[in-house]
């Protein structure tokens, strides 16, 4: 059986006054039904643009998909370099965003907003859509769903709003839920509730989840597979255990060293990643991480690293894995 979503060599550019930004530079991945894929990386690494281009949410112009394909359920969703967005959004893919307050319409009740999705995509009558909206609100464990459906976003707390967003995104029973930093604006206690809810719903209806986050704790809790993105590229991908316990790219190591781990050894030091990501107006010819990498070699500056195969699903774009490399990769990555 082929994967639910296959993205191959996706490249996205944006025209700006300052020139053309190469936001996504050849991203490929697959996602199976019922799986959770986490995409991690720092601001500006292209993780949101990657999923937005699959969703047809990239404004064109100024955006441009210059190459690549994305097949959802065997159907190409990037046709003639233009995306058939209306067909995908809502029906096949649901999406929730970081800031639920600004992604909901403040002048409509929560119930109406959820019902609207069903009226547009499913052709439900207003009455039937509203009844279904109340069921959906109830499904996301919001107490007193019928009463809550008649309330406006300002009457909800942040956690409740994010639950309503989930209810809305699941209204048309999508096969993929894309969650773009869904819990970044929430407290850890509410974050735990939302993550639990997403997992329960996934268990119930078998949807796949793409989770965009920069919190490695959330990744460890939720993900089956992980993509680590840097400067518009996937620098490492693999199972969650591969990426955490057998990290194979210096950037992944750097991210892990920059976060306090809560093992009981208090002497541990945080090691920041010095410098900043490269300018994507003129991406470097070699490895994007060259300027910040503590293990950089001469080849890294000029030669673009290919993705080395390290395990069944485990890939890393780093020259240290080349057979002729005289630095032992094991030494660098043994941690």
């Amino acid at each position, binding site marked *: 059986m082929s994967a639910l979503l296959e993205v191959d060599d996706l490249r996205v550019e944006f025209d700006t006054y300052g020139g053309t930004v190469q936001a996504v530079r050849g991203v490929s991945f697959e996602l199976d039904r019922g799986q959770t894929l986490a995409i991690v990386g*720092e*601001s500006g690494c292209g993780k949101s643009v990657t999923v937005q281009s699959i969703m047809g949410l990239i404004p064109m112009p100024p955006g441009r998909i210059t190459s690549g394909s994305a097949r959802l359920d065997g159907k190409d969703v990037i046709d003639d370099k233009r995306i058939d967005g209306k067909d995908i959004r809502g029906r096949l893919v649901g999406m929730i965003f970081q800031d639920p307050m600004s992604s909901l319409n403040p002048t409509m009740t929560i119930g109406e907003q959820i019902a609207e999705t069903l009226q547009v995509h499913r052709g439900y009558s207003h009455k039937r859509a509203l009844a279904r909206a109340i069921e959906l609100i109830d499904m996301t464990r919001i107490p007193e769903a019928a009463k809550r459906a008649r309330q406006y976003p300002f009457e909800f*707390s*942040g*956690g*409740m709003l994010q639950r309503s967003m989930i209810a809305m995104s699941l209204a048309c029973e999508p096969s993929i839920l894309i969650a773009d930093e869904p819990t970044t604006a929430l*407290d*850890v*206690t*509410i*974050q*735990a*509730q939302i*993550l*639990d809810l997403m997992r329960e719903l996934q268990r119930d209806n078998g949807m796949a989840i793409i989770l965009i986050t*920069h*919190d*490695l*704790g*959330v*990744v*460890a*809790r939720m*993900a089956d597979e992980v993509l680590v993105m840097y400067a518009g590229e996937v620098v490492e991908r693999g199972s*969650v*255990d591969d990426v*955490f*316990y057998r990290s194979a790219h210096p950037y992944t190591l*750097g*991210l*892990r*060293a*920059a*976060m*306090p*781990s*809560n093992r*009981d050894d*208090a002497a*541990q030091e*945080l*090691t*920041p*990643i*010095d410098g*900043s990501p490269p300018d994507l107006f003129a991406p470097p010819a070699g490895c994007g991480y060259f300027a910040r990498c503590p293990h950089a070699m001469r080849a890294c500056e000029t030669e673009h690293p290919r993705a080395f195969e390290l395990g069944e699903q485990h890939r890393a774009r780093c020259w240290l894995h080349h057979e002729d490399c005289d630095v032992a990769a094991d030494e660098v990555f043994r941690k």
Partner: protein
Amino acid sequence: MSPPQTNEPIVAVKGLTKHFEIGRGQVVHAVDDVSLDIARREIVGLVGESGSGKSTLGKTALGLHDKTAGEVVFNGESLPAKYTPGDFQRYAQSMQMIFQDPYSSLNPRMTVGEIVGEGLRLHSSLSRTDIRDTVADWLRRVGLNPDHMSRYPHEFSGGQRQRIGIARALVLEPEFVVCDEPISALDVSVQAQVVNLLDELKESLGLTLLFIAHDLSMVRYVSDRMAVMYLGSLVELGPANRVFFEPKHPYTELLIGSNPEPDPVSERSRDSTAIRGEIPSPVNVPSGCRFANRCPKVMDVCRDLTPELIPVVDAGHADRQVACHLYG
């Protein structure tokens, strides 16, 4: 001018209360009867959910809010309940604040040199060239290029702006600094840069910090002691590592249990960690223990009697305090 070296805390918060009137006779109990001593050169981390009153406590301690009740003693001197402009002038040199949002806390119409130098202009008798040199020196110390002094805030990244905010707060060499979520808006790799910078400056300047954040792992890493707030009151206080690894208050336990660890194996072996319900409104504060309606270990006494923050002996030390009837 070096402050007297004694065992007296540099900052003693005593029964501090801050209520906000929101009309129609309703009162928000943002901070209720909080007492906390902070020793010289200590970093106290303050954690809790949004709405628990962490920021209000920090701001009230510095006089940015008027105090409803209680007092703050700084270096043995009781601070006024309501600051006059003269008080701000006087205390700005010894107490400062670093804000959460590096975007809205810098005046977009002032250059970095003006922002960082403003405190010196108002509070010192330095000449203009001396101010310039001091500002350049501080920009260097926080890792910015002094040649960028004439640039405006929008020309800098989030992490760089947070460094500007740090330079502004520290240029007068204060003794006590409240850091209100100084790293929440930053990327992981940059968070570590800012945290290490604060740590380094603490060592070199002998700073005392109240570090407010909701990232529990980071607070544990940064702080000497950790204070946990819930709905306006302090529920637990103790050495950061012990509070984190062996929480005593049921709320602390659940809060720390909600914090996902960057370790897939331990996360997989862990069941749901969520606390039921949400933090109640601080307008109608429940009587008795404020956590009673969400607490998995609730007893009858909890609903009637408000637990006091009392010392609890732990591993032979009496340096922990918990407000819970389980330890009565």
